[in-house]
């Protein structure tokens, strides 16, 4: 593995700057420009965090799935690094989704937590990937840890379709999708003044995600190089 090229560092800096700008615009739009919701009032502003963070978490686990599958197939270290990096950031965004959801639930349902199908399956998703990170750190042999992680990474991803379908299959407190529905375009389900800050925040979260992922991926690469150099020194 070669040292990181200055072009890549510059690209990372640009993505980071764009993410920061989008986050600041998103905050301004969500908290100041956007009007309160007709039914939920001001607390509906939590949606501008809740939906972008779960979409980011899903994207992250999709990359874990792809990286894990590719690693099991080709045994290339870069795929394992991608899966490991994406899992760590996915855990962060899943935990944040559950916390935001809990605060939102307290104001709309009157409870911080309920054993609703969607909430429970999301908590299971978080536990699976916390388990993934623990498994990776507990197995000393790097290759064995990568294989075990890849298997768990793929199995864990199967929970996501269950989370998505849970609101259709079971009677849940969590409402079915109200914006991203297959039968209607998003702008037919939500007023534009509420949709604009949501789109800005989704873009901001995605930019932030790719910035964090590039940092975490490079960290994984450097750690692999460090291990190789140490092994060479010991040999």
């Amino acid at each position: 593995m070669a040292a990181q090229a200055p072009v890549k560092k510059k690209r990372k800096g640009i993505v980071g700057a764009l993410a920061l700008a989008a986050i600041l615009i998103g905050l301004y739009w969500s908290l100041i420009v956007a009007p309160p919701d007709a039914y939920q009032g001001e607390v509906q502003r939590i949606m501008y965090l809740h939906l972008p963070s779960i979409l980011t978490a899903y994207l992250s686990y999709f990359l874990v799935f792809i990286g894990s599958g590719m690693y099991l197939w080709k045994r290339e270290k870069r795929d394992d690094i991608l899966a490991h990096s994406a899992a760590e950031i996915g855990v962060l965004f899943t935990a944040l989704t559950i916390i935001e959801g809990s605060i939102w639930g307290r104001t709309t349902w009157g409870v911080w937590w309920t054993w609703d199908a969607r909430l429970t399956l999301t908590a299971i998703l978080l536990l699976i990937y916390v388990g993934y990170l623990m498994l990776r750190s507990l197995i000393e042999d790097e290759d064995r840890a990568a294989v075990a992680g890849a298997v768990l990474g793929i199995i864990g991803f199967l929970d996501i379709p269950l989370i998505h379908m849970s609101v259709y299959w079971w009677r849940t407190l969590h409402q079915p999708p109200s914006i991203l529905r297959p039968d209607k375009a998003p702008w037919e389900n939500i007023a534009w003044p509420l949709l604009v800050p949501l789109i800005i925040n989704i873009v901001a979260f995605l930019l932030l995600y790719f910035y964090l992922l590039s940092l975490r991926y490079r960290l994984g690469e450097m750690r692999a190089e460090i291990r190789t150099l140490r092994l060479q020194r010991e040999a």
Partner: protein
Amino acid sequence: MGPWGFVGLAYGIVWGTILIYWFCLKRRYKEAETELARLKAVAERLDDVEA
């Protein structure tokens, strides 16, 4: 707590946690960068000695 209190709590936790994660990630990144540079320098010195 009023509605803005809950909104502030959610935004504070989310952005505070992301900021802490970013700081920790940057610190881990810098540590790995320093360690890698040190090991590479040692390896180069050893190569020079062997040559």
